[in-house]
């Protein structure tokens, strides 16, 4: 089946097979491997994307059901030359260790900042509670939030 979705601002058309997830289609059909594939059961958050204005796990979206929707992946947040402020802050604070959770953290974090530019620490921890970092680098990620919210202020 063919679906049309707007990905990172661009109208795309892609073939999907059966019940394949949006995650599979983003990575394999649309050549956007920034969104990471880990647990495939919505537990780890590494596949987080913005789907019709909500941060969700793309592994839990059936790709055929995404027809007509709008998706932003980590590739749509910034480019190497023009990083999102939260990406800059993650670099500055060393919020990246192995890097596998990072795209999901960056998408969930930027979504929080878009909705709430001055989140409290509790709100930050809550917004990231669905993103699991097995390097346990949460301290540096929280410091990245401090940096970016301070700069915005």
């Amino acid at each position: 089946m063919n679906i049309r979705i707007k990905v990172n601002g661009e109208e795309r058309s892609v073939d999907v097979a059966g019940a394949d997830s949006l995650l599979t289609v983003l990575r394999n059909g649309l050549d956007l491997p920034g969104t990471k594939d880990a647990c495939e059961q919505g537990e780890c958050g590494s596949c987080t994307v913005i789907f019709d204005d909500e941060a969700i796990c793309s592994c839990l979206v059936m790709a055929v059901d995404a027809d007509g929707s709008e998706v932003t992946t980590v590739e749509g947040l910034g480019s190497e030359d023009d990083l999102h402020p939260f990406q800059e802050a993650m670099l500055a604070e060393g919020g990246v260790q192995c890097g596998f959770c990072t795209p999901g953290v960056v998408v969930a974090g930027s979504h929080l900042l878009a909705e709430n530019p001055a989140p409290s620490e509790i709100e930050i921890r809550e917004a990231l509670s669905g993103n699991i970092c097995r390097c346990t680098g949460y301290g540096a990620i929280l410091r990245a939030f401090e940096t970016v919210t301070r700069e915005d202020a």
Partner: protein
Amino acid sequence: MAMEFVAARDLDDALAAKAQQPDAELLAGGTDLMVEVNLAHHRPSQVISLRRVAELREVTRSRIGSGARWSRLEQGPHRGLAQAARTVGSPQIRAAGTIGGNVGTASPAGDGLPWIAAADASIEIRSAERGTRVVPWREFFTGVKRTSIQPDEIITAVVVPDDLPEHQEFAKVGVRNAMVISTVSCLVMRGHDGFRVALGSVAPTPIRATRAEQMINAESTISETVLDEFARIVSQEVKPITDHRSTEGYRRHAAGVLARRLVERSAR
């Protein structure tokens, strides 16, 4: 074989599709179905998506549409349900998962189910052929992941009695704070008719601790002795099992502790 897929535009559309394909699987937030697809290599042959059915998302005090997502229910209108919604999965899961999915899946650990039991709510179900029927929760939940729904039916809402107690407290025990399936969950309501105590993950279906309710509601003052006895009866009354998540003994203990704590909290 290619999968047949219907993106229902409205409820009539969804009901017509379900009448035509009673074996089709319903897709809402995908938080259960897609896990089966991804991990159990489940290959559905027919799927009807309810995501675009706006009617199912409507929420009022007396009627909670089955398509209401947890992120919506966190905002109210019912305190205990909002507390339960707040403990579902993670923000990503709450932005996708729906109360109708929780009800339809009927897992003993469904976070929304103790509230439904404490509220004495009913499940509204519709089919194209027979119209609407409203099933009390005790008749709806029949076993572990088993309900009395028929193949051509769709859950349309949770129907809530209008005399619901204002004091409502939910809590669950699990191995961590976020992204956890409950080991035991409990919801206590306090109104002029006394306490209502519902529990999850301690029986094949959500249950009310009827004997413990009768015991505590017969007392004029809630002393430490009364609370001890209440907790003991709750622990006796639940019917948990030992599985990969916990043991029968721990679940009995935790059920008593949780119920007691929530009675104290709701009496404040």
